[in-house]
């Protein structure tokens, strides 16, 4: 093979492989779960750990909300639960700005915006709303990055608190799903719940 042919073949082959690799790396990355949750802790004013990118892709249009209203679709906010859950891998210390009104709990009322954090899905900036000494809302007003990635994140499973699951009382469900295979167990618990719902 002539040198020119060899060079062209090598260049083209490596180029194509690199493109394939790159395309593949993106799909691999997108298929990984972020594995990060937010943990809002009491007693540390204006600090919220960011990195939870489980918020919906449509949140790019969010405007920052003030006060106790929570119009955000980001949805990764824990409202005043104060508990820490899951594993928090990346937390960004953030500074705050907002109306400073000291309360007994040590949290100041107002809206606090964290520093912009670069994540692999784009830039995330967390805003915490404190009202009456409690964190009432956590929002991600800024989430940039291409939409395709955000959409992919939207389908991922991420750690959440029990309080974040769509709550249900047995009285308002129509049916019950559980890992129950025996009729005895089923009759004992689930059918009872089902019947109670429609009693």
């Amino acid at each position: 093979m002539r040198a020119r042919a060899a060079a062209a073949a090598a260049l083209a082959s490596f180029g194509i492989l690199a493109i394939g690799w790159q395309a593949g790396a993106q799909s691999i990355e997108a298929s990984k779960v972020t594995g990060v949750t937010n943990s809002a802790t009491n007693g540390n004013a204006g600090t919220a750990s960011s990195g939870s990118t489980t918020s919906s892709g449509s949140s790019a249009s969010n405007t920052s909300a003030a006060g106790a209203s929570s119009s955000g679709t980001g949805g990764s906010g824990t409202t005043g639960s104060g508990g820490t859950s899951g594993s928090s891998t990346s937390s960004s210390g953030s500074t705050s700005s907002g109306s400073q009104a000291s309360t007994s709990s040590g949290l100041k009322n107002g809206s606090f915006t964290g520093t912009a954090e670069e994540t692999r899905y784009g830039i995330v900036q967390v805003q915490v709303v404190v009202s009456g000494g409690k964190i009432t809302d956590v929002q991600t007003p800024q989430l940039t990055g291409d939409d395709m990635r955000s959409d992919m994140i939207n389908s991922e499973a991420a750690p959440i608190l029990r309080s974040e699951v769509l709550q249900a009382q047995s009285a308002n469900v129509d049916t019950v799903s559980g890992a129950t295979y025996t009729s005895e167990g089923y009759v004992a618990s689930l059918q009872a719940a089902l019947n109670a719902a429609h009693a």
Partner: protein
Amino acid sequence: MTTAFRSAERPAPPPRPRPGSNALARELRQRGRRRLLREDFLTMLAWASGAASVALYLADGGAAQFNNLTTATTSIGIIAGLIGTDLVLVMLLLAARIPLIDGTVGHDRAMEIHGKLGKPALYLILAHMVFLLIGYGLTDRLNPFAEGVSMWNSLPDMWIAFISTVLFILVVVTSLVAVRRRYPYEFWYVVHLLTYAAVLTALPHQFSEGQLFSPGQWQRWYWIVFYLVVLAALLRYRIWAPIALTFRHQLSVTRVVSAGDGAVSIELTGLRLEELTGAGGRFFIWRFLAPRLWWHHHPFSLSADPAAGRLRITVRNLGKGSAALMAVKPGTKVAVSGPYGLFGHAARTRPGLVLVGSGIGITPLRAILERAEFEPGEATVILRASTPETLYLRDEIAELCRQRGATMYELIGQRARHGNPWLPRHQTGLALSNYVPNLKASDVYVCGPKKWADAVLKDAKSAGLSDEQLHHERFDW
């Protein structure tokens, strides 16, 4: 004995370059450069297609599969299958007699590459099977054999794929030189046709079991289009082209005349033969439509440039097939496809022309000489034979040399034991450059038995000629 048409024992002194040859030289060089560019491009394309088949998998996130042994084994299997299939498709393209490929690297080279790819392709396909049986076996906690049985039983297209593997093995094994020599050409040919069955039977499982090619994946389209391109090329150039050419020219044998020791010239007539002008030296694939002959096909070069109403091939009694040709009757219809090969005017790159032939390989040189572009004095014809009787078409060639101003040497005698093995014994110590003063500014066409031709080419290369100046046609079928 050596006779030279223009000079005696020693080659002539170099002729002075003529002013008129400059334009021709420029044009030929450009033509050569363009051909090399095409060749490099095709080479790049072939490699790139192999890389692309791996890239298909990488783009699907395949790189992530290499972090544990089971999925890595599976991935290696998948990649082996992808490259193996790519090689098979490239091989089919090489054998499809596509004019672009034929006119760039020549039929011989294309088939040589085709042959070289056979074993790697088979090994990759076998690796595909073995690695996947091990990989899936690890996943399913089965040994590879049990996994194979399970796949055969359970997956709808898998048993067909296993059959495909067996067919591929059969095709490659019968093509090994050692095996191929033992059986008649026809046997090998029929087995080789099974390649198509092997490719077809391999198809279903690629699309039904391969996740990479499942519906909705863009990779599926790449693969389908690749297959369709190959299919189209085969239909167009292996099936349609011969039929069209046969009906266009409607060849029939006019007479068969002796052309010396054990050789005959078959003259044919037909319609629109002037369209084939310039095809001298290149070969056609012939099928004589007579009982017991029609199912053999023969690659023969033209031994005279086509003229209106007249074609000629010169054939020596080499095998069973050509023996029967000696007795072909006038009036026999002939199916034909071609012309193929680079052994013709299109391959010229230099103003000088050197034609070196031995035995029956002399005959295509005669056709080239007839229409080649050269200034008087810039062409040299060297004919090599062990006896004067096998100096086929000698008189015709001598007459052409006289008319066109070419130098001709007849080198007759036993092979040299020392020095250049392509020369007769009594010329020991000489080389091609001694016969051709303007050798470096010439194209060298060599046609004859492989070993002999290789010796000539080696000689020419050692004289400093580059690959683009060397043209050869194997003539040992």
